[in-house]
């Protein structure tokens, strides 16, 4: 287990290094000068050059990369060009919002998918199966922004159950504001999750250990919960883990549609404003979230299936 963890953490660090290096190369390869973007079209070239020097952008790329890496290792993510504020302070405000959004999205996805998949698996092939497949195909084929817009119009604008956008001020308002965005992200992963769970639950329900449970005289609900769902849910955990990247990408779109001040909107503002340090830092955090979720997914196998050996 320890060897597994050490090896995995080493690999994760390598992945994160690859991502931040690729991001560094991409943001510097794209035309567009952050100093010019900050000072505007009318500022004289001398002012632009002075700002480039202040930000170290006049140095060779290799030197800039070295400074970037050494700062990163020491926990210094730099200062935003646009807002002239330390990026760690910006992240401290934004990261909890995005994490809460992702957590609520996963919760909604599980709460919707598990009962739906169990219901279909128990009933077997038939109308319910076809119905869920049709629903899945429609939900999966609908772009996130369209689902979000529909939810806003119906539950925000018409029924006034939830805010149309924004994040509110108090914790209760934050949770209330995140319901529709989280549901939008959740609906993007529900179809795949339901399909996977349905298949593995169907297999589990036909297995010998379930038959054994019934023959022991256990209640059907106990057999379902303790035997079938526990075994069948391992595939769901895999899907959720794989979908971490989709969740992060979904957060980017959804934060813009719902005006949620999270990491996604910070990243977009950074890209548009040629704010290199912000783009690099937000990419690093998103990459970090994804690889940590992968690690947690691997570790959770051992909890759900005692036969799994992490080597």
């Amino acid at each position, binding site marked *: 287990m320890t060897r597994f963890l050490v090896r995995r953490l080493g690999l994760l660090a390598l992945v994160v290094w690859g991502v931040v290096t690729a991001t560094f190369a991409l943001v510097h390869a794209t035309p567009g000068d952050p100093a010019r973007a900050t000072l505007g079209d009318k500022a004289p070239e001398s002012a632009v050059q002075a700002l480039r020097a202040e930000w170290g952008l006049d140095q060779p790329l290799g030197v800039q990369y070295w400074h970037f890496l050494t700062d990163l290792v020491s926990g210094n993510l730099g200062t935003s060009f646009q*807002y002239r504020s330390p990026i760690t302070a910006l992240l401290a405000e934004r990261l909890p919002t995005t994490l809460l959004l992702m957590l609520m999205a996963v919760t909604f996805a599980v709460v919707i998918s598990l009962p739906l998949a169990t219901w279909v698996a128990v009933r077997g092939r038939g109308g319910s199966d076809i119905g869920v497949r049709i629903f899945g195909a429609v939900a999966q084929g609908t772009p996130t922004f369209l689902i979000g817009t*529909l939810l806003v119009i119906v539950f925000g604008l*018409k029924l006034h159950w939830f805010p149309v*956008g924004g994040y509110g001020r108090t914790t209760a308002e934050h949770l209330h504001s995140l319901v529709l965005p989280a549901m939008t992200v959740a609906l993007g992963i529900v179809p795949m999750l339901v399909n996977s769970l349905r298949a593995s639950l169907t297999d589990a329900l036909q297995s010998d250990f379930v038959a054994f449970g019934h023959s022991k005289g256990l209640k059907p609900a106990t057999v379902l919960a303790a035997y079938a769902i526990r075994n069948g849910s391992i595939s769901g955990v895999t899907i959720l883990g794989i979908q971490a990247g989709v969740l992060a990408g979904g957060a980017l779109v959804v934060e813009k549609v719902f005006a949620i001040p999270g990491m996604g909107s910070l990243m977009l503002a950074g890209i548009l404003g040629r704010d290199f340090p912000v783009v690099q830092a937000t990419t690093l955090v998103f990459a970090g979230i994804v690889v940590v979720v992968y690690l947690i997914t691997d570790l959770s196998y051992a909890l759900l299936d005692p036969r799994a050996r992490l080597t």
Partner: protein
Amino acid sequence: MIPKKWLPALAASTLIASLLLVACSPDLSSSSDGMGTPQAGGHLVMAREMDVTTLMPADATDNQSIWTSEEIFDTLVVPSVNGEGLKPSLATDWVQSSDKLAWTFTLRPGTTFSDGTALTSADVKFSLDTASDPNLPSGFLNEQIAAVETPSPDTVVVRTKTAWSPLPSVLALYANSIVPANYGGKSREEFAKAPVGSGPFKVKSWTIGQQLELVKNTSYWGADRPYLDAVTFVAVGDANTRATQLQGGQITVNETPAASSFAALSSTPGLKASAFDSSYTSFLSLNNTRAPFTDVHVRRAIAHAIDREAILKAAYFGQGTAAGSFLSPAYWAYDANVKGRQFNLEEAKKEMKLSSTPQGFSADILVASGNATQLTTAQILQGELSDIGITLTINQMEPGALRATRKSMDYDMAISYATTDITDPDELVRFIAVQSGGSNALYTGYDSQEVADLATKAASLSDQAERAKIYSTIQQKVNDDQPLIPLLYQPMLYSYSDRVHDFQPSMTGNYNLVNTWLSK
């Protein structure tokens, strides 16, 4: 009888159908009209594409920061709403010396900053001296200022290097806002995040990148102003979200509503939609340093081949007017007799025959990616220019990359625009038509010594009528040369609750929220 096994599919379809039905049904709610005597109080919430990036007026370059600073700070003078002149603000009057090299400003007596500190000539000197740093974004506009003197606490003398009429107009610029001397004891960085000004509102809190809350400055010098208790600016990047937030009553004002929905908004109960005059002019920029655009006949042929009305309808949903002169009608120097080279295919073909490439040629046109308006415009141009043998290839480019490409003059054609920061035409004339004016003539490379000399002469004269004559000559000369082709004059669009009254942004964009009020 519906088979039982179809029920889940039916339920799913019904759910989707009901969602669509509710989404598409009209909203019948409306609010009452409250026009009449201005009412004090209320909280105005304005949603904008982006948050402010700085609260230091001299550092501001984005419109959000500029227009916000004008609510927190005052300048010595302010432009009138229609852009035709200047009005007193912190200075109650101003006069130019007989040798035309100095301007004396008398400060409004008893004015204080929002923290209660008296505002004196020392604050004005500090503000103008620091804002004139050539490394600041707008520092170059103050390059004619030779010295700022403070003969008394309520008198300021600004000396200029040459006789220079645009000075009062430049002092109305946001970057020349009056801040406390030495930033009231704060560092420059601290002040930029929590500033103190003498304007109608003061900063309550700022969550960077998210929202800025302003509250009424109770010691503001304007009698009974402002009416509003508080103003919150929230960053909402998505145009659809801003529109739905306004309909849902979550915000009061939507800055930059989509032009496509503007007509519908005007007829939505409870909402108003207004188009305000602005200096925004869109152009088709041509690279005058690259063949065949070096040929004036090619440039004129292109200008005559463009049907601006078609672009206005298809790309701008009718919001704007076809442009003639490169200066917009929002300027006092605008010459309505300069009609531009209007759509005339015969004339376009004649000019092409006279050119170095009578058979036509191929060229690229740069368009900002994600900008549907520019893309539609380019597609229309593609069709229209094919009539005179020009094959256009549309090249979509990320806005930052596009800016860099234009600046490096590595392009054929591009859709561009210009706006002004001051009401005096001097800034924009130099910016668009003078090669050394700061932007290589809006990155066209147009180089006319005659225009440059005329612009310098116009800035040195005091008499507005005399100056207007020279600006007319410049407009005519640029119209003859067509270094860039004026396409449209565009208004600033706003949609807002019908509870909002006296919301009247000026042609430079200043919101003027000091006069705005909300009916209950």
